[in-house]
């Protein structure tokens, strides 16, 4: 998928674990894990807001669009 979730890197920079983020954001660890591994089909604005607030970052810091080189 050309859209990549860089939650891992952001968490590393903030020295925060996924469990801590889950607690801060108020969503389940399971759902956050789905987001982190790029298995989510959609993200609610409210979730994005809460994550950005907790990590003190912009949506662009955790979502990156990469153009597929081999696309036909």
């Amino acid at each position: 998928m050309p859209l990549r979730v860089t939650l891992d890197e952001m968490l590393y920079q903030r020295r925060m674990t996924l469990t801590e983020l889950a607690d801060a954001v108020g969503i389940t660890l399971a759902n956050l894990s789905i987001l982190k591994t790029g298995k989510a089909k959609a993200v609610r604005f409210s979730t994005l807001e809460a994550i950005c607030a907790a990590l003190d970052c912009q949506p662009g810091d955790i979502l990156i669009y990469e153009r597929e080189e081999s696309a036909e």
Partner: protein
Amino acid sequence: MVRILLIGMNLLNWALAAGFGALLVLLFAAPATVAPTFAKFGSHAAMMVRAGAATLGIGLVSVVAAHMILTRLTAMVDSVATGRPFTLANADRLRTMAWALLAFQLLDLAYGVLAIRMSAATGRYFGWSPGIGGWLAVVLLLVLARVFRQGAAMQDEVEATV
């Protein structure tokens, strides 16, 4: 509760099939036994025996259609109890039920033709009248199957939304 009712209905359904089968065997294997029953039709007796056999045949095929509908309905009731009814499996079940009901309607129509012919030949009423309800139910089930297909896709979408 509904589940037990449906399973009971299907058991009755197959009991009916056993009855139909037994009568069919009797009709062909022991014609002498049933001859007195058909004697009242006089010159039409032979035709009535054939018509009776055809009716029993229609009945037997109807049992299969009813079995398909009842088993699918039981499975759907079970899935509703789990709280996750919008699945592709249920969409497929509804579609199967629609086709089974269509088969049922066609069999009913076939019996109708038979009943009208028997009535015309013997002057007796064989209890058949056309109805629109079943045909509407077929359409309703097909539409519901599509709705469930859409619902299943939406449920997947919601579950993958964080």
